[in-house]
């Protein structure tokens, strides 16, 4: 009897709306929310939808977006890093100090800062995994300590100017004209190569591969999306270098999470670390790598922030306690769909979450609304985004993974 049931031919399963929402279309509510925000702000301000403003919006969202991308790795393994903003601050001050006081070449100082960030991250991971103190506590304490260190590193003027070091240019460079289209072409080509290589290996292995759904549609979608973005950016000044950096990080991050063994292990460890351990996965090493990535990426965001503000100071890294930078970075990841309980979230979370936060800030600013209101709205949006996620989960009976 049971055999007859289990040996039935594979059914062609139709996927329910609920299942789609729970998996492939998990990002849909947040995209709809983003579009709604844009429509709202477009009705409130004539300037909002101009190429110039959308360009600015993207630039304003990059630092938080990059931070969110880094934190995501730590959230995936079911840990948290509350020191990322402090790492961002202290490494950028360190970098400025060695450039300004010791005359170190920025080409050396920047990688050094990123390495330092990764090192700090891996140290807190070691503390978490070997001593067994929760990451919440370790990184909270570490963050405060790094804040102190940042203040110590700063000179009496409480500020290092980076004017004239060349670093200030990072935030000013735009890739315009044919260069912008070339960048787009390279990006789409890289994506197409990846998708195609996957499809070819499936075909080679004898698996049925729907060319249309597996290759043509995703590549076409990516190309159209890229065309729109680059057209808008080109209508202003071109692709800002820091936006390109963010884009490259998103691409690399997506590849690592989706295609590599390390990426898979991040999800496994975050969901069931005991199962991962029994499968022979070195859980401690995976966690350490996640913290190192978050630290290194936070340092890179620090370099970009320093370039945008033409220098570093007490305010770097969001100021003492991490300020809004820390909260917005975590909020961006969570709004984008990364679970605080580990094992769930895709790379686009960093982009979408940062865009939501950036849009609110940019739009309210255009409307002349005070900063206080911006904080309140952002906070409420965070709770709303997670609530919608939960409601979908309840309504569809699909647990979110």
């Amino acid at each position: 009897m049971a055999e007859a049931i289990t040996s039935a031919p594979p059914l062609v399963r139709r996927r329910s709306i609920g299942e789609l929402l729970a998996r492939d279309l998990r990002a849909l509510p947040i995209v709809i929310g983003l579009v709604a925000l844009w429509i709202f702000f477009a009705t409130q301000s004539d300037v909002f939808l101009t190429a110039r403003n959308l360009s600015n919006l993207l630039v304003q969202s990059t630092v938080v977006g990059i931070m969110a991308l880094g934190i995501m790795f730590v959230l995936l393994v079911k840990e948290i890093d509350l020191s990322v903003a402090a790492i961002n601050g202290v490494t950028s001050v360190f970098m400025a100090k060695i450039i300004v006081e010791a005359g170190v070449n920025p080409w050396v100082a920047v990688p050094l800062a990123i390495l330092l960030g990764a090192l700090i991250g891996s140290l807190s991971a070691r503390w978490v995994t070997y001593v067994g103190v929760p990451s919440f506590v370790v990184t909270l304490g570490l963050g405060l300590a790094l804040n102190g260190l940042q203040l110590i590193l700063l000179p009496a003027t409480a500020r290092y100017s980076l004017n004239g070091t060349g670093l200030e240019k990072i935030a000013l460079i735009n890739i315009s004209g044919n260069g912008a289209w070339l960048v787009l072409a390279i990006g789409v080509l890289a994506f197409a190569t990846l998708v195609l290589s996957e499809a070819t290996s499936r075909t080679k292995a004898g698996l049925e591969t729907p060319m249309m759904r597996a290759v043509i549609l995703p590549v076409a979608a990516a190309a159209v999306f890229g065309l729109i973005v680059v057209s808008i950016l080109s209508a202003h000044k071109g692709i800002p270098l820091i936006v390109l950096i963010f884009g490259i990080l998103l691409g690399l991050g997506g590849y690592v999470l989706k295609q590599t063994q390390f990426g898979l292990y991040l999800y496994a460890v975050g969901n069931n670390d005991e199962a991962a351990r029994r499968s022979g996965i070195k859980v401690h090493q995976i966690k350490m790598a996640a913290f190192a990535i978050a630290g290194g990426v936070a340092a890179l965001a620090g370099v970009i922030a320093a370039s945008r503000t033409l220098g570093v100071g007490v305010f770097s890294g969001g100021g003492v306690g991490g300020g809004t930078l820390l909260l917005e970075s975590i909020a961006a990841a969570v709004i984008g769909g990364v679970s605080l309980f580990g094992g769930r979230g895709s790379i686009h979370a960093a982009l979408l979450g940062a865009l939501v936060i950036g849009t609110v800030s940019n739009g309210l600013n255009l409307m002349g609304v005070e900063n206080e209101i911006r904080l309140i709205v952002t906070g409420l949006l965070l709770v709303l985004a997670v609530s919608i996620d939960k409601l979908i989960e309840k309504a569809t009976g699909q647990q979110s993974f």
Partner: protein
Amino acid sequence: MTDMSVGRERHVQAQGAAPLISMRNIHKKFGSLHALRGASLDVHAGEVVALVGDNGAGKSTMVKVMAGAHMATSGEYDFEGKPVKINSPTDANALGIQTVYQDLALCSNLDAVQNLFLGRELTGSGLFGRRIKRAECEVKAREVLSRMRLGNLSLTRPVGAMSGGQRQNIAIARSILWTPKVVILDEPTAALSHSAAEQVGDLIRRLADQGLGIVVVSHDIHNFVVNATDRIEVMRLGANAASFRTGDVTGEQVVNAMVGGNEGVNLAG
């Protein structure tokens, strides 16, 4: 003793052939607690052995020693007729002994293929560490699942969205992915409905028919043990209390032997 090849022969049903695993006079102490007191257990190819007993009888300890998760304090352990020393689960895996623990050790956010291969992915070199050869994993997964007649399991749905029975099946499939000789299952039907337990029973039977030796720890005497196994080994207080051929006994007799109520039905020896 017989040579190694005997154990590899498929469909060895005869009790006369050398057992795949022979554990004799096993003692295990946890500090002052004497959990196993001279327990013995044989596992033959093509046979499903049930290990039953009251709570605390030492069943889990026994299978953990078998699987390398615990070291015996003393005793003999032969694999395919040769004495072996198993110091870790990895040693046991290398010999071809796989364990499906009661908690299944699956990641609910990963799909069946990812769970089947977890920790042992087929990979090629790539940017930033090894790149998973998803297509090849999928082909091998399909092959194993269809061998188990589980061909209609979804390979792409997260296993957290699957039923308890399906999850159990995936955990078992994972244990046989690398063609082991012995599979140990601790309480495989504990969380399952009657019909799902029946399907697990069928699955275990098919594996045994393919020549594997199966050890099942179970409390489900009346439904599962008396229907789905070949031999029942009863443990009490860390030692063997009785041994039955499954067809020869009723559930009551087994339970009596477990609690020590009626020594008369003890057919051991």
